[in-house]
């Protein structure tokens, strides 16, 4: 393809968020829509997620990752989204100028009327959880191992210990077992699971893989290759409990210790980042503080289900198309949304009541402390309850969603801010 000088909407990343944003932008009237993807094919991290569990909300079907991605790739081609693959964006300016490079097209710059950031997230590493010990080969993030096994077709070890009960870690425990490896143990420093319960059941319990909560790695042992790890129990303040140390022989330590939105390009463009989510501050249309720069999916906050990422992408793409056609909405008042009682964070950070007049606005949050009992998810204005929803429990590994409806419009319009809370029923 030839690269145009100008595009209506440029989407950075072709994972589920980026694909949905590009499709929505095109369907809502944007003319030239381009996705820039650094890998050699579109689909993002879904391509290495060959397990099922994708699409239950969007398609009412349980699909493997690549199949889920393919539906959107097909649709993107059908509606005329353009793709630049094997291409890395180097820089985005606040006035939407994008510099990128690829082996095929060389170095180039393009101008976009609107940009959707959909770079996804990356995995936390050994250094970020500051794991002591030597630095041998055989300490990998779960996602790197997943790429090796599912995309490249190689086993990165024989005997594994997995630190962290994140979803990718648990899924890899099962996957590695299928491929003939032994997963000795999954260790989790928190007193609760950090991924989805269904993954604990289907990936660990079903394969008799032991999960130890309130345990971590105290030492990595081995000069060239991992030879063993030293596990230890921790107290409520994450201090090692002396006497609980255990040497577990293994040749590989996989880390599934959290994901961080990937916002280096966003920062360069002047996008402000919420220190709690590590993603941009966004409004209900996923616009950042920089007019015309939107963000969608795991680059905003780390979701638990791909279906929500797709939905966020659709909203961001629609917002970008609206901007391209109608120009910026001036003088529209926005209402801040704040994380209240037992809520770690909430997205969006503010909302435009005019949008609520047209459609529901979904408010999504993560609970701070687990509640293993029926809860209320509440939206409050000052001390007063605006709206609430019942949930059977609240767990940090599972996102909580509450929709605001057009019926709430008048009260929201009059509010100076909204607060969300998760409390015992």
């Amino acid at each position, binding site marked *: 393809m030839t690269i145009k000088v100008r595009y209506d909407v440029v989407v950075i990343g072709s994972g589920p968020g980026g694909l949905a944003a590009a499709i929505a932008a095109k369907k809502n009237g944007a003319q030239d829509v381009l996705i820039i993807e650094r890998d050699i094919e579109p689909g993002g991290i879904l391509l290495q997620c060959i397990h099922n569990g994708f699409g239950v909300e969007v398609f009412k079907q349980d699909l493997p990752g690549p199949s889920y991605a393919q539906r959107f790739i097909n649709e993107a081609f059908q509606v005329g989204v353009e793709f630049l693959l094997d291409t890395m964006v180097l820089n985005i300016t606040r006035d939407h100028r994008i510099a990128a490079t690829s082996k095929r097209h060389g*170095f180039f710059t393009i101008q976009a009327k609107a940009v959707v950031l959909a770079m996804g997230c990356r995995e936390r*590493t050994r250094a970020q959880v*500051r794991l*002591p010990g030597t*630095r041998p080969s055989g300490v990998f993030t779960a996602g790197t191992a997943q*790429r*090796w096994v599912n995309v490249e*077709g190689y086993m990165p070890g024989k005997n594994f210990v997995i630190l962290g009960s994140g979803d990718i870690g648990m899924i890899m425990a099962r996957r590695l077992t299928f491929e003939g490896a032994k997963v000795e143990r999954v260790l989790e420093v928190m007193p609760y699971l950090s991924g989805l319960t269904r993954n604990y059941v289907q990936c660990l319990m079903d394969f008799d893989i032991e999960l130890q909560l309130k345990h971590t790695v105290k030492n990595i042992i081995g000069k*060239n290759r991992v030879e063993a790890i030293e596990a230890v129990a921790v107290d409520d303040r994450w201090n090692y409990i002396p006497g609980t140390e255990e040497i577990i022989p293994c040749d590989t330590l996989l880390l599934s210790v959290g994901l961080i939105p990937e916002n280096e390009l966003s920062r360069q463009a002047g996008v402000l980042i919420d220190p709690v989510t590590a993603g941009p501050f966004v409004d209900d249309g996923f616009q950042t503080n920089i007019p015309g720069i939107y963000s969608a999916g795991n680059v905003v906050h780390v979701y638990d289900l791909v279906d929500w990422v797709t939905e966020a992408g659709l909203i961001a793409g629609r917002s970008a198309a609206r901007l391209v056609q109608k120009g910026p909405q001036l003088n529209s008042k926005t209402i801040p949304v704040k994380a209240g009682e037992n809520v770690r964070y909430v997205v969006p950070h503010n909302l435009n009541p005019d949008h609520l007049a047209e459609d529901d606005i979904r408010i999504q949050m993560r609970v701070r402390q687990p509640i293993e009992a029926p809860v209320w998810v509440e939206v409050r204005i000052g001390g007063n309850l605006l709206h609430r929803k019942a949930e059977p429990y609240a767990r940090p590994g599972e996102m909580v969603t509450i929709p605001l409806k057009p019926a709430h419009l008048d009260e929201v319009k009059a509010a100076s801010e909204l607060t969300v809370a998760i409390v015992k029923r």
Partner: protein
Amino acid sequence: MKNYDIIIIGGGVIGCMTARALSRFDLKVLLIEQESDIGMGASSANSAIIHAGHDPMPGSLKAEMNRIANPMWDQISTELGISFRRCGAYIVAIGEDEFGCLTALKERSDSNGVTSEIISAEEMRRREPLVNPAVSGALFTPTAGMVDPFAACVASIENAIQNGVEVLTETAFTGFIMEGKTITGIHTNQGDFACRWVVNAAGTYSDEVMHAAETCQDFKITPRRGEYYLLDKAEIEMNNILFPVPSAVSKGILVLGSTHGNVLVGPNSQSTEDKENKSVTSEGLAEIWQGAQKLVPSISPRSVIAMFAGLRATGNAACLTPGVNYNNDFVIERSVEVNGLINLAGIESPGLTAAPAIAQRVIELLQDSGETLIDKQNWNPIRPARPHFNHMNREEQADLVAKDPRYGRIVCRCEMITEGEIIAEIHAPLPARTYDAIKRRTWLGTGRCLGSFDMPRVVDILAHELNLPATAISKKGAGSEFLQRQTKEVEA
């Protein structure tokens, strides 16, 4: 048996710089390194500082070598095409109690012949806004600088290779071949080599090389481990080198902005008998953080993106200058007990700084013993630097990609390292054959994702370029392979 004039044992910065210094003469020189790559010992984990020379004990060989070597770095870095920044360094006094120490440090600096000045707290805060507001003053040493220590090793050995020096990696010294009191060769795990001279630059193992020749039985290296933490560029930016007021054993835990743009904090100092123990510890982390936050309170362990430890080759040699009571001096000598041995031992800090002067001293020691060194007619001191995409401006990047499209494909997203750079290192004069060798040369995989993204891609490129199966590609040599087998391969 292959025959050499000189064999250098050890491919750290001392061995590499010595090889380069000797390459200008008409000599047959071999450097052997037991690891899979050069620069994997102390040269791979240190503070990356070209010290002004204020700190060593006046009258010691450390002080002398530091003083001679410091001014050499401008020319060397230019010839070798490596980045060097003469930015100066600050010894920062925190609180009024420490301010008094600056006068003593200034006196020490003066007696070492090193330029320095005491600056006010206000001036220190102006020059480094991140410094602890409780600063009471600082000693500024303007001649200190910052270099990439891996680049110094790689560039000097490459220049040596260009000029005819041979290098063997994964080749470990196992003993001397002697005729009476004269060395005539060495045994290695790769066979025997004849030579007239051996230069012992074996770092933490330099005592064992001495003992193998039945010399210097009292000399002992007791490594001191130093842990370091590297911080995310996006979280903290600093361009200065800040030392605390020093303790008896070390220059203390410092905070500096490295040549790569990351803030580096460390090292602590823990004696160990284990010459391979390069582990990081939770105690070390706590110690380093306490030290670092004393200088720069705003830095947080949350912004750590990499951690590592190095071993200082701390010896127990007494200073030979009469009247100087100091027992951890460098050993730079021609052995008097056997013929044909030059020892470069106990080279801890300021070893990186001192390396070019130590290399020069090796030449003098050879000449003093009657060796006639004849200049090579075609010696070329220039080692051309290879392109670094991320260090270029947009126009230069565009030009580079236009010339060679492989520089247009980014393999490491955090540090923006291209396929072109990786391939160039694999086919360099000293080929980079492992992941870590490429990492040290390009700075790939040192960013926030710590290589999670690039690792499978680099393994693939290495396998392709070296024409090896992916399962043969390692992190740092034999035994550290990444991959065990193909998924559908039936296990034996």
